[in-house]
């Protein structure tokens, strides 16, 4: 083990169930103290990957290294990794205290130390008054905290969180998100979150891997994944986005600015955007713009604007979401803030524009 090793290294791992490939040649690293999120729709293999790290599934190919050592031969009960289950999986025949103490007792920790650690965990999760209750006497939120306290009690090197907030209502979910982040900062351990909820992943994680069909579609810091989606699919999966069809007007190498024309603004002057991939003249690309970066103006046909008609309006408090049909039939979504948005009417002709700095070219 050297200090430069990541905490967990997943190296070209592949796992099949019957004819289905759940995880396909996947590699990733999780650093010491990092909050990492695996984000993807159900069935994308994220849970399988997490279960392989926990030891409940074995990879068909590839290795999983912990501190540089292959843990293939280590059964789940000997891995310094703990998991918080989506169903919480509390022991129904034990009270809160005994649930939390279970893992410590398996380590043969001295009694006094167990009691001290259990007290610490109860304090941390604010469960002290409920210590003698059984799981079926607790609310969903309380159960969630017991599951967390139980998984944290052993001070694992890595805590795996399987959809930890899925069963909570919205308000409690937000509160718990902040609690989780605070707890992690306090304990300084690595967390791996598995979720299908992009807001959850973006709110908590330092780094996100977006998974699709057993592979990583994009991996990077939360902000980068949101602002600079790598593919159309990743762009569509994370948050709302408009993908405007466009055509490259000349060849350009990766990272070089390239003129392109939007299909829905044929008369407008070409816009100049850089793309991460090389482009050929005539190649079809998508220009991705988040709804909040799409400015909406009334009527007045400007130079660089996409003209369309408002087909739908949804008042969202601080903004109004407008769905605007463009000549090609594509329906764009734009957030119009404040009074300007509220005064819009259905059927009205509007004009959409965006700052090229907020747009991203996606070749695939």
């Amino acid at each position, binding site marked *: 083990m050297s200090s430069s090793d990541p905490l967990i290294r997943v190296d070209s791992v592949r796992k099949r169930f019957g004819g289905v490939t759940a995880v396909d040649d996947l590699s990733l690293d999780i650093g010491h103290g990092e909050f990492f999120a695996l984000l993807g729709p159900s069935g994308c293999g994220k849970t399988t990957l997490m279960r392989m790290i926990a030891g409940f599934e074995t990879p068909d190919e590839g290795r999983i290294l912990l501190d540089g050592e292959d843990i293939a031969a280590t059964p789940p*009960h000997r891995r310094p990794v*703990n998991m918080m289950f989506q169903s919480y*999986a*509390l022991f*129904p025949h034990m009270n809160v205290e005994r649930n939390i103490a279970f893992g410590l007792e398996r380590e043969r920790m001295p009694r006094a130390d167990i009691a001290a650690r259990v007290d610490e965990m109860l304090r941390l999760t604010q469960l002290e008054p409920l210590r003698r209750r*059984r799981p079926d006497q607790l609310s969903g939120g309380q159960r969630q905290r017991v599951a967390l306290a*139980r998984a944290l009690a052993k001070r694992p090197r890595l805590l795996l969180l399987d959809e930890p907030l899925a069963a909570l209502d919205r308000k409690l979910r937000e509160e718990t998100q902040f609690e989780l982040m605070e707890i992690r900062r306090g304990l300084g351990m690595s967390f791996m979150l598995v979720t299908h909820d992009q807001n959850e992943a973006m709110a908590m994680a330092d780094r996100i891997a977006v998974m699709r069909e057993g592979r990583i579609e994009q991996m990077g810091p939360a902000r980068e994944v949101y602002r600079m989606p790598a593919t159309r699919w990743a762009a569509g999966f994370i948050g709302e986005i408009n993908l405007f069809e466009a055509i490259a007007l000349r060849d350009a190498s990766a990272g070089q600015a390239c003129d392109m024309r939007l299909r829905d603004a044929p008369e407008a002057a070409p816009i100049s955007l850089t793309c991460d991939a090389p482009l050929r003249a005539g190649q079809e690309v998508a220009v991705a713009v988040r709804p909040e970066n799409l400015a909406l103006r009334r009527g007045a046909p400007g130079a660089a604007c996409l003209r369309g008609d408002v087909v739908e309006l949804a008042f969202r408090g601080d903004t109004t979401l407008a769905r605007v049909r463009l000549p090609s039939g594509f329906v764009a979504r734009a957030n119009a803030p404040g009074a300007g948005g509220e005064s819009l009417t259905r059927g009205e002709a509007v004009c959409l524009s965006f700052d090229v700095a907020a747009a991203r070219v996606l070749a695939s």
Partner: protein
Amino acid sequence: MTRGRGFFRWSVLVAGFVFLYAPIALLVIYSFNASRLVTVWGGFSPRWYIALLDDRQMVDAAFISLRVAFVSALFATALGTCAAIALARLGSFRGRALFAAMVMAPLVMPEVIMGLSLLLLFVALDAPRGFWTIVLAHATMGMCFVAVVVRERLEGVDRSIEEAAMDLGASPAQALLRVTLPIAMPSILAGYVLAFTLSLDDFVIASFTSGPGSTTLPMRVYSQARLGVSPEINAISTVMIGFVAALLCVHALARASRRARD
């Protein structure tokens, strides 16, 4: 209209209970009959219960039955629980379907066939028939009932609870002992009670597999009844009914108190 329907419901209910329990009620009442004649009421008397205490054969048979039931239910529970764990937890293994069918077969197999085949087996093995052959036979019969009850419960338990135990450092054996079995315990106890009462009741299989000196209570009652029904048989039957009822009550109360505690 509703009144008419209410009357109909009540009469069906009463008729049903009468049909089921009138014979048993009569048996209990006549066990306190002072008269020697079974069908003529001669006043209340506990004399047949006292006579029962002096009937060595009957008391011996009762104790044999209780011992057989106690021991065979232990075996049945242990084996049945193992079978249930194998079926509910080991996933698919070679011969699983066959195993499942064979565990469940005695549920539908005619008792006569079971008794006869066991008798043939014991004869072929030249095993001396007596207490232990009845115990083995009853354990075989009881284990399938235990397996059904326990398997039902295990299949209702979230698999991830056991995974959580292993995740927290319990070896598979510890997870079984500290998590799976305690959760399944109510059903294991229910299985034991079931196997116990089935063994206590059984006449057919016991008659095939018993030997000299190991006559069970149902066998003794049957052979006496053939010589003429004496009120003493009513008395011993009442004691058995009372015993089984008490056992079921204790079991139900234990369940209720566990619910109340939770």
